[in-house]
């Protein structure tokens, strides 16, 4: 049974995470690892559409924030339980991906990218006008006093994000090795040829966009509780756009390993950097590294490692 090993590994990681919450009390550990796990989800989600299929999404903040605001709305209006928030956030962001994809994916890929770039600003403007979820000023979010068996809400959020990260990576890995993944790769390599070889390119592209958006939305759902605040500036932060793009590009875009490596490396680096240097300078460095990689090492770190390994074998 091919899937037995991955399931065992996933469960062990989850188990280890839960055990960790019983042992470690330092709040900062959970805060920092939450951020990195969040980036694992975002980078992996981005890569399904960007790396596997070849369509660049600049609008990660839009999908992420939509998940966060959907959750906030449902919690304020209906006091919905957390699982419902998670599913709803994924659903709504997935629908956004579906809609945008349906409208723009019949055209050349660059038009999809341009639309995603404009999407964030527009969505942010609409949210700013929505007073119920706080509008421009935002709302403070109060964490529940008790949650399941965890001794702090931070631990709960950490485990939630751990589940999402394991799930996202598992989905990406499954897709990559399936006939869907091969179809996406064909679209990326040469879309016209793929279409003529029987690949239903539009359907697969829309599938990738929807799935990617859905995962990004789910990553956004816990965010208001993570920072105990929901406001447009932080939810729609351009950082998410750059990072969810830079991490796969630096790590490697053709496999599920790349975004994981990129998210961990870049995420840890940024956590360290934000403490030592200003956050703007930190972002500037990310931008420069991104440009350097896209010019000099487009296959990312995974690609470089592969080349090194081949050379040793040859």
């Amino acid at each position, binding site marked *: 049974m091919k899937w037995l090993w991955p399931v065992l590994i996933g469960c062990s990681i989850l188990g280890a995470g839960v055990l960790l919450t019983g042992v470690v009390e330092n709040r900062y550990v959970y805060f920092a690892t939450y951020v990195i796990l969040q980036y694992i989800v975002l980078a992996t989600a981005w890569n399904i559409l960007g790396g596997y299929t070849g369509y660049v999404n600049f609008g990660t903040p839009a999908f992420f924030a939509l998940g966060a605001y959907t959750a906030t709305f449902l919690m304020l209006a209906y006091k919905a339980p957390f699982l419902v928030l998670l599913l709803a956030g994924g659903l709504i962001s997935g629908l956004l991906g579906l809609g945008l994809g349906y409208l723009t994916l019949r055209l050349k890929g660059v038009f999809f990218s341009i639309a995603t770039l404009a999407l964030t600003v527009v969505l942010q403007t609409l949210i700013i006008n929505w007073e119920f979820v706080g509008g421009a000023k935002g709302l403070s979010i109060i964490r529940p006093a008790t949650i399941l068996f965890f001794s702090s809400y931070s631990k709960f959020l950490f485990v939630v994000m751990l589940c999402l990260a394991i799930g996202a990576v598992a989905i990406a890995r499954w897709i990559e090795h399936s*006939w869907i993944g091969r*179809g996406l790769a064909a679209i990326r390599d040469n879309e016209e040829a*793929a*279409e003529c*070889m029987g690949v239903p390119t539009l359907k697969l592209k829309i599938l990738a966009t929807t799935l990617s958006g859905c995962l990004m939305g789910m990553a956004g759902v816990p965010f208001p509780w993570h920072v105990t605040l929901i406001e447009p500036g932080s939810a729609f932060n351009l950082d998410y756009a750059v990072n969810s793009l830079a991490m796969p590009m630096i790590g490697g875009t053709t496999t599920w390993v790349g975004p994981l490596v990129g998210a961990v490396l870049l995420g840890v680096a940024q956590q360290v950097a934000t403490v030592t240097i200003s956050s703007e300078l930190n972002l500037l460095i990310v931008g420069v590294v991104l440009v350097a990689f896209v010019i000099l090492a487009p296959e990312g770190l995974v690609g470089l490692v592969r080349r090194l390994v081949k050379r040793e074998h040859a």
Partner: protein
Amino acid sequence: MAATLLEVQHVTKRFGGFQALTDVNLQVHQGECLGLIGPNGSGKTTLINCIAGVLRPDGGSIRFHDTDITPLPAHQRTRLGIARSFQIPKPFTSMTVLENLCIPLAYTAPMQDRGTDMTAEAMAILQLIGLEAKAHMRSAHLTLIELRKLELARAMAARPRLLISDEAMAGLSSAEVDEILAILTALNARGISIIMIEHIMRAVMRFSHRVIVLDAGRTIAEGTPEEILHNTAVEKAYLGE
């Protein structure tokens, strides 16, 4: 009289102000080899793109196996049995030769079979084409004739009833032309109907049962290779007045 496999009727195509095809009619019969020739810019590739579904004609209809396929997108036409090779090869560059073939093999198979391992069938096609030695080479590293063969192999992997070969021999040496010709003849012998677009006259004339000549978007002649060779309109189209 063999059954009609493909029927192109009154097809027109415009690009902005430029009329690429005007009232083109064409038939391919079951098991036939049809040669499609014409000077550069006469609309041959545009016609092929209309048949394959990459372009939508502005007027006219296309029927395959007596079904109107005009509204269908290209990938559905491929599944119905129309496959084409590209004039400028378009391999899936991140994949090996074998993996290139697995794409059409998987996607023209029914949904429940899509995940199965098709390596054996792919290797069989590669053996027919003569590329089995390169099966695990990345397609980005092939030579020109190998790329041309890959195009044909990939089209073969789509399990076609009709194969459209778009200038598969351009730029090849005489011996290489014969290799490609042999492959196409072998495919035809298996019952696959073929439309061959070529500039290399000896290949077209040897290979085709019938030839259609296109000039400036219109069909100007149709007949056996013999008839076409002696057709004055065709001479004029190629050599000028």
